[in-house]
């Protein structure tokens, strides 16, 4: 099931010696809605595995007091109640064991089974087993103080037709001095793995608090519950709730972003500071439905390009000297040249420090800046999990990069900006509610264009697009004057920029069982992403970098402490100690890549023709030889050749996909896949049936076109598949069906090699 919102997600500290203030404090789980008494499910869901009859999550936020004064501690009570009907063996298995977490001294679980005849059976939770968790030593005191406990219990006598009804209670005390005034934000879809008849989210907040709440894609809004609110002279408790009914279970569709396609909500409770006028004037909780505050965005992110460290100094000092020399030599003619060369020079220094310096785990941390700028880094840790790491990839920390690039370019009188954006998977800028949702890259403008520059790795080409920036919305923060920011659309690449082009030269061996292939692949833009790390595994590019951006050491003057640099002893060469191993590994990985799509008989040679790391439109180009099997079959004296399979695996839409689509279409980016296949027809044979390979489907969303023509003793097949956009409304899904089905049909096409 979808992850349950839980206090367990909140990691915090407890202050000792505090007591609740004398007030009429509401308590959680007191009201059981009539929806939780239901035993029947709607007919439309009667054949489903299980149905959530009701689920309710309730939070109560109260302030603790010591004597007559409030402390900085907020007590949070959580109450979760679920009632689920088990309708088949799959659900019976899924719910036959119950794992749960409680927090606080009064943390507990209650569990009941309602048998088909109405009999209620209480599950004795004393039989639950507390699990030992591997908690890192530094967190152990926190877990102990918070009283976090992990339990599991096998549910006895659970049968198909039963209803399970359980609730969980937890309490934690949140010290604002240590943990901040904003509690953990929650972002989730209202669609569950099982269809849900009724769900409610409820907050009760003491005065001096507010909840930031936004609903999306048709989710209900938060409402105030006056009946459940308590208004007092000194203290007030205001209750808010959100109801959702009759919610179909999640449907999984390809190219779908859950938060953009399904009813979803974002919320977070915030404690107002004592000097906040809202806190005193209102004396009660409020719901904040405003957009994200741009000043807050500025304050939070501006520092990301202002964080000077010794590493930054080293990068900047080298780049500045290098650029000055190249300028003096007349090699940098315009801003575009300077920006590009600055980027590559900084990377050279970074890679030199990494690969040639005293490589050390501590240094690695230092270099990648993991001890810097804690809040942003914490967020990055989450984001980095989304950005898949490539083979042999080393990426500079984004704060080190931002500061280095900004400083080095400023020395050349070129101003950089920080582009803070809302990732497309989460929504538009207007959908942003919390600062934690945002991310940043650098943006530098020349007269010609704006460059969006992510913290580089060893493979990125200057100015190449990044999938996660595609179609994003954000704000640019300027550094040439204070408090400068303005709205900026993110980059959007076209299918002409992201191209996979493959030339095949196909010949048949005499035995007519396997085929030999010589293939040249040319990849640009996003199409390089999966292969560039593997293709450059030999690290020969380091030599090129070190030579191209080598600058003889200048005079070492005495520097101020804040300007100190690391002595990196720059030199031109690089001898990769693991080269042989890396070459072997590269071949194996390339071979594996082919095996993913073809029945490989033997992988031959690999040759890197262009490493794809330089220039705005840097192409990754390599050549391979290999032989494939099982593409030829006999038919009497003739042969059937699965020529269509050479374009690789194509998407085969499932039956339900052919029938329609429920959600909008979110692709990562537009792109083009081209194959030029030259088949050398073996002597004594002619080609028949090639006319079936001519196809043409073209619409506003995409296209698949193919041609096949005989040229002497060769059959030349050209195919092109284009995804023209990175988004379409669901109504345009038939366009996708049209060209995807055509591409699949082509991939299954055969020609006959007929014995003359």
């Amino acid at each position: 099931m979808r992850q349950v919102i839980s206090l367990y997600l909140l990691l915090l500290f407890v202050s000792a010696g505090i007591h609740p203030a004398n007030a009429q404090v509401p308590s959680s789980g007191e009201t059981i809605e009539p929806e939780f008494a239901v035993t029947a499910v709607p007919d439309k869901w009667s054949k489903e595995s299980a149905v959530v009859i009701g689920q309710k999550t309730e939070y109560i936020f109260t302030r603790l007091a010591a004597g007559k004064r409030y402390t900085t501690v907020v007590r949070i009570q959580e109450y979760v109640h679920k009632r689920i009907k088990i309708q088949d063996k799959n659900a019976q298995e899924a719910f036959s064991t119950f794992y749960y977490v409680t927090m606080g001294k009064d943390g507990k679980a209650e569990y009941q089974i309602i048998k088909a005849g109405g009999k209620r059976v209480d599950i004795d939770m004393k039989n639950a087993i507390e699990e030992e968790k591997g908690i890192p030593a530094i967190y152990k005191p926190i877990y102990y103080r918070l009283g976090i406990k992990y339990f599991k219990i096998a549910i006895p006598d659970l049968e198909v037709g039963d209803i399970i009804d359980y609730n969980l209670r937890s309490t934690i005390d949140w010290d604002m001095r240590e943990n901040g005034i904003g509690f953990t934000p929650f972002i989730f879809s209202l669609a569950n793995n099982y269809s849900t008849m009724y769900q409610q989210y409820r907050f009760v907040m003491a005065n001096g608090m507010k909840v930031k709440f936004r609903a999306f894609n048709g989710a209900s809004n938060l409402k105030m519950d006056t009946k459940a609110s308590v208004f007092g002279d000194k203290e007030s408790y205001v209750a808010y709730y959100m109801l959702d009914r009759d919610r179909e279970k999640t449907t999984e569709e390809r190219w779908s972003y859950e938060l953009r396609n399904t009813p979803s909500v974002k919320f977070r409770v915030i404690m107002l500071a004592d000097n906040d006028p809202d806190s005193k004037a209102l004396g009660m909780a409020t719901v904040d439905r405003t957009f994200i505050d741009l000043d807050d965005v500025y304050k939070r992110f501006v520092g990301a390009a202002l964080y000077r460290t010794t590493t930054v100094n080293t990068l900047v000092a080298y780049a500045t000297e290098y650029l000055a020399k190249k300028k003096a030599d007349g090699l940098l003619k315009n801003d575009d040249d300077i920006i590009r060369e600055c980027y590559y020079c900084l990377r050279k220094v970074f890679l030199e420090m990494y690969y040639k310096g005293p490589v050390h785990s501590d240094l690695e941390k230092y270099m990648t800046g993991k001890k810097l700028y804690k809040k942003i880094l914490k967020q990055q840790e989450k984001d980095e999990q989304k950005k898949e790491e490539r083979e042999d990839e080393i990426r500079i920390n984004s704060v080190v990069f931002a500061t280095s690039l900004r400083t080095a370019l400023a020395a050349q009188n070129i101003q950089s900006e920080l582009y803070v954006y809302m990732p497309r998977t989460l929504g538009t800028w207007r959908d942003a509610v919390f600062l934690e949702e945002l991310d940043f890259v650098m943006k530098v403008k020349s007269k010609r264009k704006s460059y969006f520059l992510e913290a580089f790795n060893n493979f990125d080409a200057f100015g190449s697009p990044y999938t996660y920036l595609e179609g994003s919305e954000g704000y640019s923060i300027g550094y040439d004057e204070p408090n400068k920011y303005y709205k900026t659309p993110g980059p959007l690449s076209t299918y002409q920029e992201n191209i996979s082009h493959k030339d095949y030269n196909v010949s048949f061996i005499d035995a007519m069982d396997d085929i030999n292939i010589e293939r040249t692949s040319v990849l640009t833009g996003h199409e390089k992403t999966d292969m560039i790390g593997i293709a450059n595994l030999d690290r020969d590019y380091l030599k090129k970098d070190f030579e191209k951006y080598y600058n003889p050491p200048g005079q070492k003057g005495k520097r101020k402490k804040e300007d100190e640099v690391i002595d990196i002893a720059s030199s031109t060469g690089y001898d990769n100690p693991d080269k042989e191993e890396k070459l072997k590994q590269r071949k194996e990985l390339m071979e594996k890549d082919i095996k993913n799509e073809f029945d490989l008989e033997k992988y031959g040679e690999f040759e890197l023709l262009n490493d794809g790391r330089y220039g705005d439109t840097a192409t990754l180009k390599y050549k391979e030889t290999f032989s494939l099997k099982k593409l030829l079959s006999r038919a009497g004296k003739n042969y059937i050749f699965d020529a269509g399979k050479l374009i690789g695996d194509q998407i085969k839409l499932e039956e339900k996909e052919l029938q329609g689509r429920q959600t909008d279409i979110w692709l990562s980016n537009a792109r083009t896949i081209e194959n030029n296949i030259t088949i050398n027809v073996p002597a004594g044979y002619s080609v028949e049936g090639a006319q079936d390979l001519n196809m043409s489907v073209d619409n506003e969303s995409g296209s698949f076109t193919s041609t096949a023509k005989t040229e002497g003793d060769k059959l030349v097949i050209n195919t092109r598949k284009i995804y023209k956009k990175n988004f379409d409304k669901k109504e345009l899904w038939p366009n996708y069906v049209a060209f995807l089905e055509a591409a699949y049909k082509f991939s299954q096409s055969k020609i006959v090699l007929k014995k003359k």
Partner: protein
Amino acid sequence: MCRLLHVRSLCLAFFFSLLFGSAFCQPDFSANISSWKTLFPKEDIIVYSYKETVSFSLNDVPKPGEGNVKAKVVNELTLVPVKDFIKYDDGLFYNDQVSIDNVKAVSPKGKEVTIQKLCGSYKDEDIFHSDSKYCSVKFPLEEKGKAFTYRYEDNYRDVKYLTSFYFHLHMPVVERVIEFNIPSWLETDLREFNFKNSNIERTSVKDGDITRITFTVKNLPSFHQEPSSPNHALSYPHLICVNKAYTQNGQRKVLFESVKDLYGWYSTVCADIGNNPAELKDRVAGLIAGKKTDMEKIESIFYWVQDNIRYIAFEDGIMGFKPDAAQNVLKNKYGDCKGKANLLKEMLKIAGYDARLTWIGTSDLPYDYSLPSLAVDNHMICTVILNGKKYFLDGTEPFIALNDYAQRIQGKQVLIEDGKNYILDRIPDFPAERNKVKKITKISLDNDVIKGTTSAEFNGESKSVLQYVYTSMRSEDKTTALSDFVKRGNNNIVVSNVQPPDFKERQKPITVNYEFKANNQVKKVANEIYVVMDWDKEFSGLEFDADRKNDYEFNYKYNFNIQTELAVPDGYKVDYVPASFKKNTPNYSFEGSYTNKGKSVLYNKTIIVNKPILLKSEFDSWNAFIKEINNFYNDQVVLVKQQ
């Protein structure tokens, strides 16, 4: 599997070191790296030496849970990274019977390094709760070639739990040593398994009161888990330490000298299960009411347990060996293999049958009861003796019929309780015929699409797999799952009108009838039509690369019997049918033929794989077999327009 035992080495625990507490530097192995990289490619860490030293001690005053003989295993390991500054990352297992103590790692400069340890309950996919614990161990290594040493001890509270010793680790080992220091008061038998061609040397030296038996092997490659690998006990060299008896104060006391002693301990453990038959009576009465024959009654009880008692395993301490009481399992409606076996026994006894608890090692284990050790078995079933015939009831098999046996227990020896005595017997072993898949398909051409109907019959393991797939799916996904099952992942096949079969009749095969369309299997050129009549092509892709490290275990013994008849379209005649092909070996065979019947072409195919494990030494001949099969598969029927 129903029971976890602490297994030494392989993917499990790790350990290392030389002399701790002393601060001298470790040797530099930089000069060896080049040759090690050749010998052990793709490895990050080489274990220069790994020694386990086993010693025994008498426990004069055993505390609860302790035995009269205890054992200590000191693990000492020298780790050499062949890459700079990588992190050592591994895990140690322990439980109520075995503790891990004195874990230490020392840097090349002789300094003890801080080890990051994260310890907690070990989660096994099949076991809901056990006493198994797991410690994740991490510490940073330094430059390549600089050796770290690592050491820890396993302390066994009772020597009966000291069983298996494996030689392989998940890192390569230059020198691997296991040394047993056996005192004169202890009678120990070290049984060797899979030692053939392992180059393990065994030496024995008498050193005063101690007999030192040492096993040494050099240049061991790392152990790699690969898909469809047989359980390591079947392939990898290992020892089982059988501690037969000890002498204390002049008195000889037997531990596990023979199966009789093992059975004796099992009996003791099971003596106080606390069954209360009265609580089962009503249920049994209801199940056998109206059943006339013995077989009907036994079946009724057996199948009810299969259908209604969920498999949830508790392996906590002695509960790894002792069944939960029958009335608890009945009330909870869950249990593990022991709980289910015990419930079956008690219910069948109430129904008037001679039912008994039965221990067995599944096909994952290469042993029989000539090995008196807790490692010998891992499962429990129930045996019913009726009119002199034994019926073995495995309550954990969710769909099996009475008198039918899952492949994982076929041919395995069983230990059946018999009061103070015991009975040894063996589960019948069935040929691949038991698992037969029989398909009869009629196809015809509709332009360039093949349309057809199939009647597919599933038996034995193939039937169990189908039942499992179908039953485990959500209700709303069952039809799709069934279609996907019969189309075998082929995107060109569109299944329709698939009829959910009758899963209730266990003694009969399952038959699935469906219609389908097969796209992209026909090529029309001028007057000719080329037709693919077999798109399933079983085993065509099962070839083994030279770099596979492990033997290959099939899911079960296979028997496919396929018959497909193509109706020749009006106006066409058969121009060509592929030649027949037949290949028989003792372990597998293939027979395929096309018959031109004028108005139709009949395709017949029979594939039998009668041996569930293919050894690495057999890969070449298997690959040649597959090549021949593919040669047959890669030929197709040609129809030509009649003039």
